[in-house]
């Protein structure tokens, strides 16, 4: 693999960097929301409904 | 008078009464036309170049001013429910409101535009094209605007969302309208641009009553 982008490095790496950050970020957000929802539902299902 | 005509004259009269929506739109239009040279400089050649775009954008924004009240007033006092129950199909109601809106904003703006074109040093032939582009294109602004107005009629602060929703949809009108003026300025034929604008307006006025009626129904029915 060739990582030497020469003169264009200053454009290519930020583009890849921002893409990677944004995609990783939204993936983490998605997974965190999923885990939160799962945990909340599990907690509610364990507890018998209180009146 | 037909139900359509009754609704039309009623809406025009309401528009004229409530703060004179035509006067408001015209003042806004003229103000923007005044501010831009202040912001951009008095280079007359530059102003002539940007006149089409600036005046078109200003006209769209001015027409936007009264759009959020298009259905909201009738919705709030319950008359929209009654209107929906009347024998006039809701689509024709929407068309009547679109027409009333155009007559009280788009048309006056079009009539004022040659005067403002003078401020921008726009030559005669280009001014004529500007006039016709606004005449043909402002009905589309009212039509597409009605879709946004009907979607947001139940919102208290819906006024902020309305421009966000409809401005992207109006990009073609601005492009063809201002483009026509630009072509006229270069003494190239503007017929194609005006033709495309006319097609866009025609489609907008024909189709938007359906979308607006559907939106009104969903807001009334719940």
């Amino acid at each position, binding site marked *: 693999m060739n990582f030497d982008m*020469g003169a*264009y490095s200053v454009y*290519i790496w930020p583009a890849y960097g921002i*893409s990677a950050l944004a995609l990783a970020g939204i993936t983490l957000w998605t997974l965190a929301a999923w885990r939160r929802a799962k945990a909340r539902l599990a907690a509610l299902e364990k507890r018998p409904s209180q*009146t | 008078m037909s139900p359509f005509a009754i609704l039309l004259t009623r809406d025009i009269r309401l528009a004229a009464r409530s703060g004179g929506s035509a006067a408001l739109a015209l003042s806004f239009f003229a103000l923007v036309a005044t501010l831009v040279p202040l912001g951009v400089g008095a280079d007359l050649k530059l102003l002539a170049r940007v006149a089409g775009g600036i005046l078109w954008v200003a006209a769209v924004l001015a027409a936007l001013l009264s759009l959020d009240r298009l259905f909201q007033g009738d919705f709030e006092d319950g008359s929209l429910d009654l209107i929906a129950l009347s024998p006039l199909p809701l689509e024709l109601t929407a068309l009547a409101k679109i027409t009333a809106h155009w007559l009280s904003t788009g048309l006056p703006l079009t009539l004022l535009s040659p005067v403002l074109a003078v401020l921008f040093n726009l030559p005669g032939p280009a001014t004529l094209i500007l006039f016709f582009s606004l005449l043909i294109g402002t009905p589309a602004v009212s039509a597409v605007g009605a879709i946004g107005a009907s979607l947001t009629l139940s919102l208290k602060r819906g006024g902020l969302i309305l421009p966000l929703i409809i401005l992207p*949809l109006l990009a073609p009108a601005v492009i063809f309208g201002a483009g026509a003026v630009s072509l006229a300025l270069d003494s190239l034929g503007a017929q194609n641009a005006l033709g495309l604008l006319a097609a866009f307006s025609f489609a907008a006025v024909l189709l938007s009553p359906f979308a607006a009626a559907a939106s009104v129904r969903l807001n009334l029915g719940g």
Partner: protein
Amino acid sequence: MNFLFRYANPHEFMRLSGAVLPFTAVATVLCLGVGLYLGFSVPPDYQQGTTVTLLFIHVPADVVAELAYGAIAVCSLLSLVWRHPLADTAARAAAPYGALFTALGLITGSLWGKPMWGTYWVWDARLTSFLLLLFLYLGYMALWNAVEDEARAARAAAILALVGVVNIPIIKFSVDWWSTLHQGESIVSGKVAPVYLWPLLIMMLGYVLLFLTLWMVRIRTVILERRARNLMQAGTP
């Protein structure tokens, strides 16, 4: 159509998506990995030099940007015409991802533009169309948030999405027409040399799989949130 309605039931959707997700997730990672490896192994383009590597993250982002809006439009149609119960949830869930990929397309396009055309922003037809698409996404999400009653919000958003999707070809056409008016030639050429085609296609597939995976997880999350809300409301007198 019946196939779609079999999975209209949230339970069925959870079952199906739960089975499919591991595969799409793994496939995503594989495609992105292979795509990136290939993308960095290609020779520089004789015209664009090494900036051709931006092709591999710019075009896939654009593809997903349009795909997501198409998905929202289809879900909106299913919601309004056939009243498919999950369609509203699916449509709303897709929007943030669509908006993000659109923004990424704009950013990568802009960074590609600077070495190619000298400025960070060029009002060419593609970039301008995608800028307008970003606003369409923002308006769609704003409408969902603004209307308080969820059922009404869903239908209003569906109408807006359908109006938007009808407008998109018109907007693209008008922006194309406009760009030839002011600049003559459209700037980005459509041809891709074969050696770049494979990394591009694999990255496109990877991006699409990523979107589908995240979208499914999001829909599942909303289903669970709704169940939790129902339990809470059942528990209180």
